[in-house]
């Protein structure tokens, strides 16, 4: 709806999204080719993937056309979101890296340790400089949640290297 005000604006990243959608659609349809349809099964497991894959490819084409005509998306606003500044990719990469570390180490070190680092690390990545306090809060949260799940809900989360200590 902003096109009348800012006619020259365009968003090229949408072509990238369209490409990704088209690839997903192709893979969905391609993946379904190997399925066998049982005897006396009029629909079979292939119809839905074919329809969804084809729909996805069609939507990708429509998105390319819309983007070429200058259609721009309305990025989501929010309580703590300031859309006037360019995106801060470094913070995002830091957060993703911290989450990847958590998922790689959670079975080895245990949730009580990785959970604490997840909290403190994420707070640090987002600009907190009270590292020691964050680490303490993280330890309270992760050890507390481990015991809550273990004794409160009967769900033992991974104890990792602290097996026997917790």
């Amino acid at each position, binding site marked *: 709806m902003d096109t009348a005000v800012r006619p020259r604006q365009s968003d090229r*990243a*949408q072509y990238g*999204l369209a490409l990704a*959608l088209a690839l*997903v*659609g192709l893979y*969905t349809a391609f993946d*379904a080719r190997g*399925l066998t349809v049982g005897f006396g*099964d*009029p*629909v079979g*497991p292939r119809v*839905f*993937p074919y329809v*969804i*894959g084809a*729909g996805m490819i069609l*939507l990708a084409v429509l998105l390319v056309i*819309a983007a070429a005509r200058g259609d721009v*998306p*309305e*990025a*989501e606003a*929010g*309580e*703590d979101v*300031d*859309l006037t500044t360019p*995106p*801060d990719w470094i913070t*995002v990469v830091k*957060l*993703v890296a911290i*989450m*990847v570390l*958590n998922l790689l180490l*959670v*079975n080895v070190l245990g*949730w009580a340790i990785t*959970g604490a680092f*997840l*909290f*403190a*690390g*994420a*707070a640090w*990545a*987002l*600009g*907190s400089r009270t590292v020691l306090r*964050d680490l303490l*809060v*993280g330890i309270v*949260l992760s050890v507390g*949640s481990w015991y809550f799940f273990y004794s409160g*809900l*009967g*769900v033992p*989360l991974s104890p990792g290297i602290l097996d026997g200590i917790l």
Partner: protein
Amino acid sequence: METFDLLMGGFAAALTWENLAFASIGVLLGTLVGVLPGIGPAMALALLLPVTYGLDATQALIMFAGIYYGGMYGGSTTSILLNTPGESASVMTAIEGNKMAKGGRAAQALATAAIGSFIAGTIGTLLVAFFMPTLAEQAVKIGAPSYFAIMMLAMVLVTSVLGSSKLRGFIGLFIGLTVGLVGLDQSTGQARLTAGALELADGIDIVVVAVGVFAIGEALWTAAHLRRRPLDVIPVGRPFLGREDWGRSWAPWLRGTALGFPFGALPAGGAETPTFLSYITERKLAARKGRSDEFGHGAIEGVAGPEAANNASAAGMFVPLLALGLPVTATASILLAAMQKYGIVAGPTLMTDQSDLIWTLLASLLIGNTLLLVINLPLAPVWAKLLRIPRPQLYAGILFFASLGAYSVNRNAFDLALLLVFGGVGFAIRRFGIPVLPLILGVILGPLMEVKLREALDVSGGDVSGLFNEAIAIFVYVLVVLAVIVPIVLARLKPPAELVPEMQEVDR
């Protein structure tokens, strides 16, 4: 009267001290999480799902009812005190509510929102209780073709009626449908879209999808655009209403309820439309009384009406969810997933198979709603303080609890990887303006639709006419066609001039 007796039976089951304690904890946790900026009711439910793992079905439902109402109320507190609605249903509340708060009437705004929510939620839940038995009787007769048609209608309505871009709505829907395909095909047991990964054979847990898209996506998106200056939080005392405020609030509460419930009960997806209609109605009525100048500067009617509409539509949502097993909002999708975990199969047979549970749930909703009023009005100043949590710790906490929730489902690091993938999807859909609701509905409704399609066509031996051999199905398809055509025709006939300034104010 039979309904009344059954509901009383539900109260008898729900009203033990232990259950009341679970309901209170639910309300407190729900408000606690819902009031946090950036978290709506659906995300609050998804994040708090693991808390109920150790409970039996009744207690879990009671706690959910509390979390649900608490989360809804928490959301409106945030929008009144920060003028930054966390979800589309609170947009209208924020317009007048925040103006009231800025004019020193935060306490009254919170009070009219809380009491209005209570009244609308109570009337709405009672309506569900009185409609459910009849509706369930009718729903049993609905066959697979009609189910398929109704799901089609829900998808078309949610995708094309809501949101500013139909194209992006459909992109969201198809992303969801693709996610719904992952796993073993339900009738032949062949793997689809699993890329050989055994962990994907059971499909992707809706909790992982919801927490990833809502919580991780929100945290990553906010991290990329974090507002570096502090927000103004308006301090608030104990909420109360003066005599004049009561006089001006009661009628909007009832009108909002009347608007909200039908929209929630129809598969029209959420509270966006009724809250908007309620706001417009109240403004028009105020103009007739010569009070229109107050609108835009904090008119209490503009908070009371939309808040009631929001809660009434949330109660109405239980009609399709319980009678047909069809969720039409993101919150309902999470509730359905939660019920499935306890072996409760929502749908027409639920009323006969597990009617005790239904009445307990409805009674719990009424109890949760009442507790909300009792607990939250006095605690409002405490909730307002929560809005001041420093943002790094807040979003670190969201990431922590989201990871905990996803990890605890199967205690598998693979789920944490999936969570991150869906966090990426959540980030992308926020970046490209793709709505979340069609995506979540696609994940939930896609597999259901496939089952019903195959059921219908198995009976007819593959003949497409098998989809149209029920009167209800044909009627619903007519509605689907109308839902697609009418907005296009209306847009051609006359531009909705009146809506334009309204929406601009919201878009600000």
